[in-house]
């Protein structure tokens, strides 16, 4: 797309847009951080089941991507994010969060260690200003390469087979959170074994000029493996079932909050395992140490809820006392569970705690309220072995 187009269009097309639009039968679109992306293509359930029993392909291109290079790249990232970046070796990917100086989560994302002193950081929000301020004192270069990299998320039990059939020989050996480089149509193509579905899956990264070719070849090769494009709604269902937090849904990125107290710390999001307080310095460390001393305000919990009515936005109670609310909820078709992610007061986070969700649902303008029992569970209901198996199972 020309620079002029970029200015004139209020929402940008992704590098796959021509192909996406051609198969988007529902014509249902949404705005993902400035890009036009499909909510669905044909039918959300069909798309969801493609992810769970075949392969679902999701256009990931709008994901914000920063390239961080230079002699201080590792030191810089280590000061930026909460986890120990030195443990992410070359060819590996790490999930992380980063905080403001109040120790509140600004965003979560993934760090790709591409080569020595060469990283890619993928995030939900645009954070160039924060990244630049954070670079004071470090010899690094930070480039927003969101528009320079096209990406597809290829997820599901047959995903490895699809990609192998497209010519990515040896992909089955790639471990979870690993990176492999290929040559595709004469240009570099990178595959990481990552995704947001809790299933076997890959993310495929290529320059935008090759996007359409990649789409065509992938769908041609995947035909025998039940491949289909999936939109935002199906992808969202899969990520809830996998128990992943979504910025903007399960927490408000700290910089986007207006009201005091609406942001959350990593501990409060159940992401304490990503915080390495042994690092001498990182943004938010002082505040997080303080929180460790004083205690957190909230807990993020996973709830197994009685019945089959999704607990969207439900208030959560203990007795008559409201102790929190649901941030993401779904009836999860594969695990056949009524599952939710909720934000509750710190006292109510322990697995096994019994709570009540106040669920409203509507049938033909008739609203019903149910007080559904729920229990705090330790992990998500969907966690198949193939997610971790290497070599990846073939079909």
């Amino acid at each position, binding site marked *: 797309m020309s620079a002029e187009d970029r200015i004139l269009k209020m929402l940008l097309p992704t590098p796959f847009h021509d192909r996406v639009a051609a198969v988007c039968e529902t014509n249902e679109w949404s705005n993902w951080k400035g890009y036009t992306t499909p909510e669905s293509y044909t039918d959300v359930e069909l798309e969801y089941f493609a992810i769970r029993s075949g392969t679902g392909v999701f256009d990931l291109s709008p994901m914000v991507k920063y390239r961080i290079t230079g002699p*201080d790249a590792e*030191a810089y990232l280590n*000061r*930026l994010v909460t986890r120990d970046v030195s443990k992410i070796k070359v060819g590996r990917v790490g999930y992380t969060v980063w905080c*403001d*100086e109040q120790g509140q989560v600004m965003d979560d994302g993934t760090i790709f260690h591409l080569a020595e002193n060469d990283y890619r950081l993928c995030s939900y929000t645009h954070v160039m200003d*924060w990244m630049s*301020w*954070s670079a*004071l*004192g*470090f010899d690094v270069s930070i480039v927003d390469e969101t528009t320079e990299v096209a990406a597809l998320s290829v997820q599901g039990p047959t995903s490895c087979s699809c990609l192998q059939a497209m010519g990515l020989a040896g992909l089955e050996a790639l471990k979870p959170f690993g990176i492999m480089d290929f040559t595709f149509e004469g240009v570099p193509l990178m595959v990481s074994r990552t995704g947001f579905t809790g299933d076997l899956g890959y993310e495929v990264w290529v320059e935008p000029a090759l996007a359409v070719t990649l789409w065509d070849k992938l769908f041609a090769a995947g035909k025998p493996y039940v491949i289909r494009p999936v939109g935002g709604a199906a992808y969202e269902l899969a990520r809830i079932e996998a128990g992943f937090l979504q910025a903007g849904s399960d927490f408000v990125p700290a910089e986007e909050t207006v009201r005091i107290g609406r942001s959350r710390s990593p501990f409060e999001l159940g992401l304490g395992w990503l915080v390495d307080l042994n690092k*001498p*310095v*990182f*943004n*938010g*460390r*002082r505040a997080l140490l303080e929180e460790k001393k004083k205690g957190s305000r909230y807990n993020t919990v996973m709830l197994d809820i009685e019945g089959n009515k999704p607990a969207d936005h439900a208030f959560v109670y203990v007795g008559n006392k409201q102790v929190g609310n649901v941030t993401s909820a779904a009836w999860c078709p594969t695990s056949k569970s009524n599952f939710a992610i909720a934000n509750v007061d710190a006292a109510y986070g322990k697995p096994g705690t019994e709570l009540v969700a106040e669920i409203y649902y509507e049938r033909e303008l008739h609203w019903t309220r149910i007080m559904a029992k729920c229990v705090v569970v330790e992990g998500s209901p969907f966690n198949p072995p193939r997610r971790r198996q290497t070599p990846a199972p073939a079909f």
Partner: protein
Amino acid sequence: MTDYDVVVVGGGHNGLVCSAYLAKSGRKVLVLEANDVPGGAASTREFSPGYSVSGCANWLYQLNPDVVKDLGLRLDYAARDLSTIGLSPDGKHLTISGNVVTSDHLSAKDKAAFAPFQAKMVKFARLLNTAFKRRPPKLVENNIHDRMTLLKLGIDMKLLGKEDMQELLRLALINMYDVMQETFDDELLQSVLALEGVMGSHMGPRSPNTVFGYIYRRLGEVYGFHGPAQVKGGMGVVGTALASAATASGVEVRTGARVASINLKADSAQGVTLADGTTLTATTVVSNADPKTTFEKLVGFRNIEAGTTRRVSNIRMKGDAAKLHLALDALPDFTGLSGDQLGQRLVIAPSMKYLENAFNHVKYGEFSQAPTMEISIPTVNDADLAPSGKHILSATIQFAPYELKAGWDDNKKVFEQICIDVLASYAPDIRSLITASELLTPADLEAQYNMVGGHWHHGEISLDQIMMMRPFPGATQYATPVDNLYLCGAGAHPGGGVMGLAGRNAAREIIQRGKKA
């Protein structure tokens, strides 16, 4: 066990004041000063063999009397309560002595307006003093001491009366240009006063905050100075006298000892490493260096969180004041001035338009084509500073940018010549008397006195950088986002000038916190 209870980085006057108070509280204190003499910007330097001058600050007019008393400081003055003489090229000067302005050319109205105007400004300065003697309150925490400070400030403001209070709030936000226009008719008088509002800052007479700058300087009147004083032996004597007072209180003062880094363990200061590699441990580290030097160079931006690095790098602290030092064969002949008048504070600022024009250049990285000057001929009051019969002229010059677009290396001589030409239009014989000269640009002041930007106050004095915003939010009350690291210099509350309050307040805060622990 640490080597010292407290290591103070920098032996400027505030560092020395702070160290003396801390030693008196029973602490083992070491002061490390990079330069070979103590005093920092309160310095005397020999700029030419036999010619010694106050290298940075010329005049003493704000030294806090509590500090003098507490530390038993004895200073010999070569002159006190000096007048300010606003020069005019044709000799139609005006003289300000205390609350009186005299001139053959001033209207009765202007003369009558002066005393009430000064009195009002001093009244506001008194109010400021309430806040300056204490640590600044914090914005968020509900601390009893801070509430008392705010309460006291509130009561004092109330005591001002409704009219004065409204006037203060109005003035605090407008500029010297407007205030001068509404108060006086005479251009020279307007400009001489307006210059006081902009000295040491990156502001012209029409800039906001300049009335605050003027009131800030009126603290001198609150502290018993009715006009500037000249310290015998130059400003450096304040430094050496404070160093002696500190030593007498048990402080160890090391000069020629440049600190290379403030060492941290995680986010807590543990001591320092000197440029020569020596490492010393301390329970508390206090920095008299400016906040940028402290956090960027000594602590290191990589070792603190980004929120802090951002605030530190945003502090506005590029100086616009330069110093010109001339060695003279004889006393120059200023048109219309008698010999004894040459020992007063002489000001070249003929009109506010001149002043504003002089300022305009620095906005674009240029030096003034017709700069303003505050001149001292110290040898009139203190003959020992130069060989017998010889004289010195020391001028604080505005405006010269810290970063000259065209580069200082090639242009220093050009600017020096411009300054001498301006002087010559008031003292035509001056060129023939000059035997040696030195121009210190803000960049030179930075290098000589180890203060980033060469800034008078280690950071602009403006409403967004004072009180609980000084030096930056999160580092008020002298403590910083690094545990056990405190600031005690001009960059901290209340600000610069040879005053001693930043050093004293910081010491008090450290002592107070120590009691709690």
